[in-house]
């Protein structure tokens, strides 16, 4: 690669990729956990819970991610007590707040995907489990959620891909991820095509790895071997 970019600049890009991957991982884990909670809360019959979840989902679906990230970085810390706020600023606030914004944004979509999966599970299964003496949480944990997750897997993989790519908006608040580094090196060297080319290849490697992982998971979780051909 040395004929394209000097080793130190290449290293900067790779550090950017590392931050991108880290940001994605943290945000995805957070988003998935939150999505499961959202779905569970939404599934209860208690109305205010449903309204809150619906409002949460509606906000995140209808406001651009860039604006959400800005809002979290510039707005939210202002309501924290001073001590916590300054502690946060000393410990890479950019990364954590970007991760929170990305996680919340993605969780709203993931919750919708899981919910569609849940709706595909016949109500009779739920009733049967309850009749057999499982309580609500047990029924969800052992009967409904595993099946729903399997159905929701393809859209969830799609969401994960989007999240990976969307980490690039964290650039706007100074997180030194791949797009940030790309623009920095472009600006330093003016080798526009080379730098953007390498960054694109790096992004593709990441997304293709995720696509492969998704396909593998799909194969693993499909019960029996279905011949899936659309001719």
């Amino acid at each position, binding site marked *: 690669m040395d004929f394209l970019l000097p080793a130190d600049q290449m290293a900067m890009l790779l550090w950017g990729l590392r931050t991108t991957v880290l940001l994605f991982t943290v945000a995805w884990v957070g988003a998935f956990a939150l999505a499961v909670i959202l779905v569970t809360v939404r599934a209860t019959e208690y109305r205010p819970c449903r309204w809150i979840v619906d409002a949460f989902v509606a906000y995140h679906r209808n406001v651009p991610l860039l*604006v959400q990230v800005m809002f979290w970085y510039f707005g939210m810390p202002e309501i924290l007590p001073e001590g916590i706020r300054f502690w946060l600023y000393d410990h890479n606030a950019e990364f954590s707040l970007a991760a929170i914004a990305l996680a919340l944004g993605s969780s709203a979509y993931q919750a919708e995907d899981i919910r569609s999966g849940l709706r595909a599970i016949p109500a009779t299964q739920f009733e049967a489990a309850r009749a057999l003496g499982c309580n609500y949480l047990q029924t969800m944990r052992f009967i409904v959620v595993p099946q729903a997750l399997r159905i929701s897997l393809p859209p969830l993989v799609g969401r994960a891909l989007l999240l990976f790519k969307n980490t690039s908006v964290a650039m706007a608040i100074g997180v030194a991820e791949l797009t940030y580094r790309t623009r920095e090196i472009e600006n330093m060297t003016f080798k526009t095509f080379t730098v953007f080319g390498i960054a694109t290849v790096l*992004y593709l490697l990441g997304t293709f790895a995720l696509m492969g992982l998704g396909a593998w998971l799909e194969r693993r979780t499909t019960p029996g071997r279905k011949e899936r051909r659309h001719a």
Partner: protein
Amino acid sequence: MLEIISNYWLTFLIGQYPNGPLGGLAMTMIVAVLSILMSFPIAIGIAMARLSAWGWLRMASAALSSFVRGIPLLMLIFWCYFVIPIMTGYAVSGFWTLVAALTIYEAAYLSEVIRAGMAAVPKGQTEAARSLGGGYFLTLRSVVLPQALFNVLPGITSQFISTIKETSLGYVIAVNELTFAANQVNNQLLTQPLQVFTILAAIYFLLCFLLSRGLSALEFSIRRKRGLI
């Protein structure tokens, strides 16, 4: 915040028009509508290719679609910005660059939605149409697509909403849309970005929320008219 709205609402809505270029919310809508309209036929084409009987066509279209879906939109916009003028030899404005990038990007995503819809139409219908003597295109046009497209209307709606939100990335190539307008206001006020971003978020929210509600209400009433509910 009310003061910002009363001073700058026209900038948010239409940019500098009629004294300068059209911008703001109006530009956001024009870019989004143009991109989704242009991506629609391409998406149907890709979906057809992905369900084609020829292996090489399935492979090629799948590769194309994963490639486009594999890079961040921001990167795609940059590439269009640099490459389109060199390939065509014409200077292309930021507006058309953004429309082109969004068209390519949305076509890839929309093709997945449409493909799912086409695959969900029972195979027996295609077979019946073909055995009645209908050709491939006739079958597609009068049997498969009308049902498939109608069934995936919610998916198309949500793709349209994402397109509106994605136009915000136009600011990187200085397209005069809503986020760009907000940044201009920001640059004039200098000290109140939080208020400006709140207004910006509220405008996007209202627009996208009302649109998605409106479109799903429309879909609901069509279903009712067709006796599907």
